[in-house]
């Protein structure tokens, strides 16, 4: 057992922290957040030059060969610095699916553009009817002589308005909530029959509703095997879940530090607020939640580095269930302890607050993940019973 980071990992974290603090001061962030694109094309390009986008991909695929530990460290620092570049939708959601499911020709066509920052891709999987269930899919894929025809409606496609191509989840066979029969297709944005309705989302960034009306795509747009997409999709969403948790953990640290600093200087009744015991204890409660969240991130790093899929699923749901509650607490208390200034646009605290609120919903909230955690526990104990029976 060993919980220490390597020198290389520490250096990576430090350099991300430095870059984000220089490139993303609060005024800069506000301009970027208010822009139509919802990110900074300049900074995104710089990230490409620094090869951040290539970080968590194998060297065989042209990446750096880093793993979940480095990915989560990077996300944490982006969260701390309120960096809203579309890293998660591009690198974690779309990029990981291409690297897991893509054939050589697909990887060669799509990954280099992602790595150098010139191309962007968005995963279009969610539908409002299914809430957070990744298996829920009404959108249909029908095979024909020229490939496939896609029909359906996708929601909350993260960074969709900036995407050059979409990775669309559609059902080849099976009922709406069946894990079998799901397929993924790479669909360029200018394909006939695609309609994109973009909007900004809470806490920074943009998303879109994506309507597919008789979208005809060639057979080689299929990513992976037909009808077999669920496992890869679920594993990538689990990774995105813990990556977004790491981002939230970074934001929580920043909110705690800013709150402590503010209360040391803000005076009422002639004394600094930081001297009042009821406020000290509140900040200690925030500190403890940040500590516990750090432990959950550590747990997730370890499980995603070396655990099996059953452990990773449980780790992702436990991590999100915990971080959703903890981040809400830290964010709400940071606003409360700042007083009136905490509910204004003028101060970064309110912006962190919105970012963390959006985090709570992404990829499933606490209720959803607690339920999933319970169900996974039952499946695990059933299968270990089966193993014991078999062994006997």
């Amino acid at each position, binding site marked *: *057992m060993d919980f220490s*980071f390597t020198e290389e990992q520490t250096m990576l974290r430090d350099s991300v922290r430095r870059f984000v603090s220089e490139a993303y001061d609060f005024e800069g962030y506000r301009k970027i957040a208010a822009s139509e694109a919802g990110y900074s094309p300049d900074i995104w390009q710089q990230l490409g030059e620094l090869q951040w986008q290539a970080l968590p991909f194998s060297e065989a695929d042209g990446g750096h060969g880093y793993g979940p530990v480095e990915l989560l460290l990077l996300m944490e620092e982006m969260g701390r610095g309120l960096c809203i570049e579309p890293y998660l939708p591009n690198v974690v959601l779309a990029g990981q699916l291409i690297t897991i499911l893509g054939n050589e020709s697909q990887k060669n066509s799509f990954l280099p553009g992602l790595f150098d920052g010139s191309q962007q891709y968005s995963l279009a999987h969610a539908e409002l009817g299914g809430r957070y269930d990744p298996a829920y899919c009404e959108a249909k894929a029908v095979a024909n002589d020229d490939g496939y025809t896609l029909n359906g409606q996708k929601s909350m496609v993260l960074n969709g308005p900036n995407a050059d191509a979409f990775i669309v989840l559609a059902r080849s066979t099976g009922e709406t909530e069946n894990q079998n029969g799901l397929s993924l297709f790479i669909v360029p944005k200018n394909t006939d029959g695609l309609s994109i309705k973009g909007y900004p989302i809470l806490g920074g960034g943009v998303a879109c509703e994506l309507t597919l009306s008789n979208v005809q795509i060639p057979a080689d747009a299929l990513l992976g095997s037909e009808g077999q997409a669920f496992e890869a999709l679920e594993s990538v969403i689990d990774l995105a879940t813990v990556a977004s948790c790491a981002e939230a953990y970074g934001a929580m640290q920043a909110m705690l530090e800013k709150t*402590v600093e503010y209360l040391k200087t803000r005076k009422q009744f002639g004394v600094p607020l930081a001297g009042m015991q009821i406020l*000290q204890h509140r900040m*200690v409660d925030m*500190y403890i939640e940040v500590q516990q969240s750090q432990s*959950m991130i550590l747990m997730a*790093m370890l499980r995603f580095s070396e655990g099996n899929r059953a452990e990773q699923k449980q780790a992702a749901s436990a991590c999100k269930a915990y971080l959703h509650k903890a981040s809400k607490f830290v964010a709400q208390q940071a606003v409360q302890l700042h007083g009136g200034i905490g509910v204004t646009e003028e101060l970064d605290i309110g912006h962190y607050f919105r970012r963390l609120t959006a985090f709570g919903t992404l990829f499933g909230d606490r209720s959803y993940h*607690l*339920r999933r955690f319970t169900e996974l526990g039952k499946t695990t104990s059933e299968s270990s019973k089966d193993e014991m029976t078999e062994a006997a």
Partner: protein
Amino acid sequence: MQLEFSAEEKAFQQEVRTWLAENTPDWSDWMGATREQLMNWEQTLAKKHWLAVGWPKEFGGPGWSVTQRYIWDEECARVGAPGISVFGAVMCGPVLMAFGTPEQQAEHLPHIANGTRLWCQGYSEPGAGSDLASLKTKAERVGDEYIVNGQKIWTTAAHKADWIFCLVRTGSEGRPQEGISFLLIDMKSPGIEVRPIHSIDGEHHLNEVFFKDVHVPVTNLVGEEGKGWTIAKFLLGHERTGVAGVPGCKGQIARLKAQAEASKTLKDDASIQTRLAELEVDLMALEFTNLRALEVAASGKPPGPESSGLKIKGTELQQALAELEVEMGGYASLPWQSDPIAEPAYANATGNYNIGRASTIYGGSNEIQKNVLAKFALGL
């Protein structure tokens, strides 16, 4: 960064598992055990050098790594093995290693490591609870002896103990903390009287200890006279990493899940299932916080203020689990100090819940821990 066990660690895990299967007694609560039961168990562990598990080899401990320590705790919790009396191996031992004279180490450490002497802790007094530094039990130096007069309270297991380590007042100059000394006292000394306090679980764990002209050789002073507060702080840090009680919580949650699963009504009770999941998730966070603290301890650094957070979260979780168990039991939780009739699974539920309320009070109340964190972790 790595979680998986090496081949050696897996072999060690198997060794522990086999040994526990052969040696675990049929009772599990060290506080409820008789002196004889407790000493038998401690001596069984000691023969294997597995009693003072946190100690280095030179003092009679096993010199385990963090991982070995983790494996040991996990395996003990898995079979519900009893704990040990913490006052000797977990508390007094490390103090003597850090502050004791070679003579004190030679006199006491072997007895602790061998399980031949039980200890208790004389800290709180009727007028000195959270404000521990206001303690009044006086030790007056007369020649080669201290004459001790005063009273300690909430002294767990004093009625079973051979020795007590005490904070006593040896001076009244300066800040209250400056006149405090750390003294080892033989419980058989004339002038000591132990009176029971019955707690709300209906049991006798706690005591008052009275000192009337008790003669203590000055060689029983640990560290310098007037420097006892430093030792007390050192010790509180040590107490806290253990006080999170992670392995015990793990065992309990596994038991509660099994009990819920076995009950026709609880099995499909969404509220119970949600609360079990919430507590299990909280426990995962606590477990990794505890592991981080253990790793700091193994590196030789003293526990930081983070251990106060462990104490707070650990005791809150223990209480939440106890509370849930009482509710899960329903009517089966109500029979009081009698043989359980309907549901033996819940026989100890209310007792555990009642005495468990003490956990957020002892070892420095959780409110005091928050003061510590405010000062040392947040610089307030």
